[in-house]
């Protein structure tokens, strides 16, 4: 698999972070990152994206709805 450009390198980021690339490709990729500051920054940013999005998209059940859930389960489970 060639790593001749930033585009090639960025295409491989998921496989790289999942540890699914062969040692030759990893070596070429790391060589590219070592000589390409924008790609190295992009790698760090790409790696941090899931955690940031997870925090941003977290939702908490409103208390009134949580109370209603408890009431529903009490009623349903006592019957069963």
């Amino acid at each position, binding site marked *: 698999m060639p790593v001749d450009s930033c585009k090639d390198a960025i295409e491989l980021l998921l496989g790289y972070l999942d540890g699914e690339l062969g040692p030759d490709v990893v070596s070429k990729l790391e060589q590219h990152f070592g000589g390409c500051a924008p790609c190295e920054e992009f790698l760090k940013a790409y*790696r*941090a994206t899931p955690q940031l999005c997870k925090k941003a998209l977290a939702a908490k059940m409103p208390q009134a709805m949580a109370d209603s859930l408890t009431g529903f389960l009490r009623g349903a489970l006592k019957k069963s």
Partner: protein
Amino acid sequence: MADAPCPFSEVDGPPLHAQCRLRVGFGDGTVGFLERARAGDLSAYEGLVAEHRDAVYGLALRFTRSEADAAEVTQEVFLRAWRALAELPTEERFGAWVRRVAANQSLSRLRHRKVASQVEVPPQGPEFTERGTLIDEVPDGARDAEGLSLDAELGRAIELASDALPEAHRQVFLLKDVDGLSYEEISEITGESVPAIKSRLHRARLAMRAAIDRFYRDGDNI
């Protein structure tokens, strides 16, 4: 000599090994919610539900985009989970199971919902020159990616960017990066192959990254 193996023991079985108690989440020596719930203790089950309800409700809300649907999915999931407790020996397994069932229920509701078809824009990633050199650099404000703090404006920008993803990309991104399901679990839920899921996840992450960078570069104009 050690006692017979406990493998997280059944409700009426022998006591759990100390190391197994750690795995089922009550290493302080107290009996955990799960074990008590499995013995039929409803108040312990309420404690277990309280620990997992935000994860289940959040997943259902992100998928269905409806508080009423999310509330109903959450009720259904925890009702079914009570009946499945015997098959869920650890809190980790319980947590994974309720998320998986919530995803199935939510997707099922989406499939049955009549929604006017919308034109989907392919996810946008970074831009390159003709020779494949990266044009977009990570902006200064987003440079310390691991250390970025989340404020309300950035949170809103991420929400909008997630909503703008094509639905199939959005579902994969939510299930993997927000809800923590495995590729195999996502494949089972969506019916897509693992390579297709990985491809969509990559495109979605690139689009989310581009949106975050645009937020820092241009303000909240996502």
